[in-house]
């Protein structure tokens, strides 16, 4: 018998728990050539800002042991362009759409949430890893109070359920997650990239023009799993586990740790069919291990 792969987040059902993570899957279009987007649990689109954004100078990517660093710098055409030109294309597919939004101020987040009120997308995802211009460039996501404020404010403007995507570059991820839940956030995505740096010993220069960048890929999986596990112990809103997932077994690990669904990022850069391959591997794991419903795995770690 075919195992059940569907999960539910905030009343929205997903065909399967595999979501293409923001920034690694464009607006889906480029990948449609390689995979049937209808087979994805969901797609988190490239991070959007209120106005179009150029992004950082190249090089923007470096390879590190079992990981990559990126410093795209949120290059995107702006939320209006997205709604007008990219979304219609995406809406042709039967999958869940998560709109990743990024602001310099709380007000910018709220204005984007307003713009999306009457737009048929399923979730907002607040990326709060970006530097907070008002607070001197410190990332929003590093202070529980700021996280509380931003979540609460956006909730007041948003129609769709709001996921808050957390940065792992904090001392205590639990207090941040608790702030999201207290403020009425509907779910938590974690983790975003870990701040890192690569140096070219021969040229004696940083590899990235931006000097530092965000580390992702299998290298960070242990960090991501630990954070998902920690957060699952202290909140009851759903978690989307992200970080280094490249196989179906990786998905199982995140579900066991307490995630309801997962985001696949860097793996899309390695193979355009990664998300679908991972769904198939997950199904295979379930068949082999006699698991009829993927929900049995969620939080099922035996400790």
């Amino acid at each position: 018998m075919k195992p059940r792969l569907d999960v539910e987040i905030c009343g929205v059902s997903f065909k399967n728990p595999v979501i293409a993570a923001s920034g690694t899957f464009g607006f889906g279009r480029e990948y449609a050539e390689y995979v049937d987007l209808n087979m994805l649990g969901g797609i988190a689109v490239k991070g959007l800002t209120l106005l179009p954004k150029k992004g950082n100078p190249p090089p923007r990517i470096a390879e590190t042991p079992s990981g990559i660093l990126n410093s795209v710098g949120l290059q995107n055409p702006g939320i209006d362009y997205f709604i007008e030109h990219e979304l219609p294309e995406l809406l042709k597919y039967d999958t869940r759409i998560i709109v990743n939004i990024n602001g310099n101020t709380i007000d910018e987040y709220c204005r984007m949430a307003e713009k999306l009120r009457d737009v048929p997308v399923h979730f907002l995802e607040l990326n709060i890893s970006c530097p907070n211009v008002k607070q001197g460039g410190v990332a929003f996501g590093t202070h529980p109070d700021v996280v509380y404020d931003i979540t609460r404010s956006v909730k007041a403007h948003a129609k769709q359920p709001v996921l808050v995507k957390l940065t792992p570059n904090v001392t205590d991820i639990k207090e941040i997650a608790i702030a999201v839940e207290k403020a009425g956030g509907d779910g938590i995505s974690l983790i975003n990239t870990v701040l890192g740096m690569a140096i070219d010993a021969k040229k004696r220069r940083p590899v990235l023009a931006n000097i530092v960048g965000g580390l992702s890929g299998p290298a960070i999986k242990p960090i991501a799993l630990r954070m998902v596990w920690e957060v699952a112990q202290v909140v009851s809103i759903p978690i989307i586990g992200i970080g280094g997932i490249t196989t179906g077994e990786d998905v199982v690990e995140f579900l066991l740790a307490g995630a309801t669904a997962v985001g696949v990022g860097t793996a899309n850069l390695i193979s355009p069919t990664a998300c679908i391959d991972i769904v198939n591997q997950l199904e295979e794991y379930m068949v082999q291990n006699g698991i009829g419903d993927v929900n049995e795995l969620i939080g099922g770690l035996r400790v």
Partner: protein
Amino acid sequence: MITSHMYKMAFLSEGIALNANPGQFVHIKVPGDNSLLLRRPISIYDVHPQTGMVEIVYQVVGKGTRILSGMNAGQVIDVLGPLGKGFTISREIKSAFVVGGGCGIAPLKLLMRRLKEMGVVVTALLGFRSREAVYGLEEFEMLSDRVLVTTDDGSLGRKGLVTQVLEEELQQLLPDIMFACGPTPMLKVVQRLAKEYSVPCQMSLEERMGCGIGGCLVCSCAVRTPDGGFEYKRVCKDGPVFWSQEVMLDEATIGC
């Protein structure tokens, strides 16, 4: 191994062999070592549509190309392609200069083949470090009307930079178009000459890549916008070939 640093590899892929345009590339997964995540972009050197054979020529510069160079016949390799926007060859073209430096010469072979098929008069200007670095010369000679070789040390052809010879040639005769591929310093001179002599010019750029298919926005190069500013385009999808007047090479920091 075709020179002390360059390797040629051939593999079977009907899809690539049938569909490749000159200037397009393949994106190769380095086999075996799972600590190396990213694919390596390598230009398509030549294709044989009848047999499905695809050829690439590459230089060993780091871990990935070193592993590739140690592969044996019969091994399976994971390749995406053909990717990117290659050279655009319009029917009006009668004469072309093809300018290549170092391992930037790789994508020019298939280009010359197509130009020849279309009856274009081709002058190939090829720069190498030295005699030992030269490869494919006989084939280039067959595929073009004239081949001018330079080496940095004068051990073959003219001593000096390929761009010096290019300037001399431009003083003699202006082609309908130029095609260039090579290290950034070379491309900068070609770009300047194209402007000075008002010859349209396409050049193939390199940048570090992630997905290779336009999804991740890491492979950017700065391209002029009509308003006098610039925007970042994707080398993998909008390129790797761009018109020389639109690219801003000061922003591109990686050479081959």
